[in-house]
């Protein structure tokens, strides 16, 4: 959480996550650069081999990073992968930088033309694959450099999240970089198949997750007989420690939590990265975000000291076993007495 900023707040889970990630990257590079030539791959020069291994590795990790979001929406078992996705993004950026360094040190070296000039002048014709690669690299560097809670706090969750949506632009640029470049050469069929498979799988995952989200969003809470109250649902339907997510007409979603015989309503959006608080649970007496573990008190939507995050709270009523919700959000951190269940 946000008491103070450290380069990386290491936990046992993060160490294991990074170990699996780095082990996977090392296995990929060793298989590509060392094992495949031993097993009879066409001999390439070392620089070209590393260039391809780093570039294709960055593409695979970027695909994985983009798949984690919808996977976690569709199956909560993938949520732990979401938590440390920033490290995956930074490793992807490092692989892309290694790819660019190999290209600059081989294809753009040994020439009297400066590298920067060569980048802009050596792509004659109609297929500008270098430009797409440069665009993707610039976006990846920007996103990796801002993948820290300092930047999240500095820019605010909305702007930070908007900035990091550029990852989709980077992915499109990488696909164009490959399609207009390497895939134009003979012998690129396996890479073409992998690219097609990855893009189709990613699109399918996003479409399925978006379709499920749209179905939930279409379920708008009906008005109660007394304005401005809405009928949120049956109190008995909310399990202990969990939430009922309600969508007011034209407003942000609200999460109504049940804890020790009381109901409390807060914003569904976490103040950290707009994670789905209503899909979290009450741990240690606090609402806990499923994405990164940010916590908020039930009665006022404030993070426990020394943390300072706040989210909006809402008023509730209980009428004949039905929960009524006042959809007008209180200012973040406003104390609202919990609704005691009979």
């Amino acid at each position, binding site marked *: 959480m946000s008491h103070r900023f450290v380069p990386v707040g290491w*936990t046992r*889970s993060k160490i294991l996550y990074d170990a699996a990630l780095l082990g996977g990257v090392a296995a990929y590079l060793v298989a590509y650069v060392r094992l495949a030539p031993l097993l009879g791959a066409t001999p390439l020069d070392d620089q*070209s081999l590393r260039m391809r291994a780093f570039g294709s590795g960055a593409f695979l990790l970027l695909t994985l990073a983009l798949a984690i979001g919808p996977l976690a929406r569709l199956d909560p078992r993938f949520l732990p992968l979401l938590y440390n996705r920033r490290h995956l993004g930074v490793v992807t950026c490092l692989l892309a930088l290694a790819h660019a360094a190999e290209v600059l040190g081989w294809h753009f070296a040994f020439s*009297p033309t400066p590298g920067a000039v060569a980048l802009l002048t050596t792509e004659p014709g109609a297929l500008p*694959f270098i430009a797409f690669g440069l665009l993707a690299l610039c976006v990846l560097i920007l996103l990796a450099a801002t993948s820290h809670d300092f930047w999240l706090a500095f820019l605010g969750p909305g702007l930070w999240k908007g900035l990091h949506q550029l990852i989709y632009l980077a992915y499109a640029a990488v696909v164009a970089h490959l399609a207009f470049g390497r895939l134009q050469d003979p012998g690129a069929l396996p890479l073409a198949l992998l690219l097609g498979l990855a893009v189709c799988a990613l699109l399918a995952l996003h479409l399925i997750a978006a379709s499920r989200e749209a179905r939930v969003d279409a379920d708008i809470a009906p008005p109660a007989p007394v304005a401005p109250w809405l009928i949120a649902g049956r109190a008995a339907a909310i399990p202990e420690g969990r939430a009922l997510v309600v969508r007011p007409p034209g407003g942000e979603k609200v999460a109504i939590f049940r804890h020790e015989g009381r109901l409390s309503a807060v914003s569904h959006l976490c103040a950290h990265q707009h994670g789905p608080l209503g899909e979290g649970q009450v741990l240690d007496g606090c609402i806990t975000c499923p994405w990164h573990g940010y916590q908020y008190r039930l009665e006022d939507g404030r993070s426990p000291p020394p943390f300072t995050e706040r989210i909006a709270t809402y008023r509730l009523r209980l009428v004949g076993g039905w929960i009524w919700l006042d959809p007008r959000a209180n200012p973040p951190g406003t104390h609202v007495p919990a609704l005691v269940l009979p």
Partner: protein
Amino acid sequence: MGWAARPPAHLRAFLRRLALGLPLMLLGLGLILGLAPQDPAGPRFATGGAPLPSLPMPEPGVTGVLTLRPYPLLHVGEGGGMRTLLLAGDGKQRPPGDLSVLDGQRVTAEGFLLSRGDIAMLVLGAPPRALGGATPPAREALGRWRITGEICDGKCAADGMRPGIGIAHRACAALCLDGGIPAVFVSQAPLLGHAYLLLAGPDGGPMDAALRPLIGRRVTLEGRVERLGRLLIFHAEPPG
């Protein structure tokens, strides 16, 4: 959850499978992509031409007749055994020194040799030394041809890089040609037994500048072809 000190019990087995499965999946993908045919200049492009004669390298150097059109070339040997070496300097640069005074002269040159298929390049470390006058080898006209293939630089195509051709190598080829490395045309199908042709302009000089945007792409060009010893020279005209 990821933020918990230990993952919940019901997720541990699933996360263990993921932690083992991800590296294994990446290992498999690395092998598949690494083993895939990767060099577009593989056997298909190395079929033509005669074997390179044994050259006394690097001592005491190579002796032959130097000509400058369409590029600096060194013709080694005589008659049917003559072999023409493309000349280049270090890196992506033309041969060192002012060669204009050596045109048509017998010279001795030192450097290192690159070869692939039926082209060979001598990369010079120092300007050749003149030995005296000589008669440049004769050329034989082979008529007009329409050939499909790729424009590349003679250094990378001659095994300076692997792969030394292809779209991904386009920028490198453009820099090499800008630096004065002789251009070659890598034919899709061998032409009279040759997969690599020296690419010249219609006027007998270097490749026409209008062809620069076509570097690295699969193109069909037309022009006259000449035989110079064991080397074919393709005088390609800019398309349409």
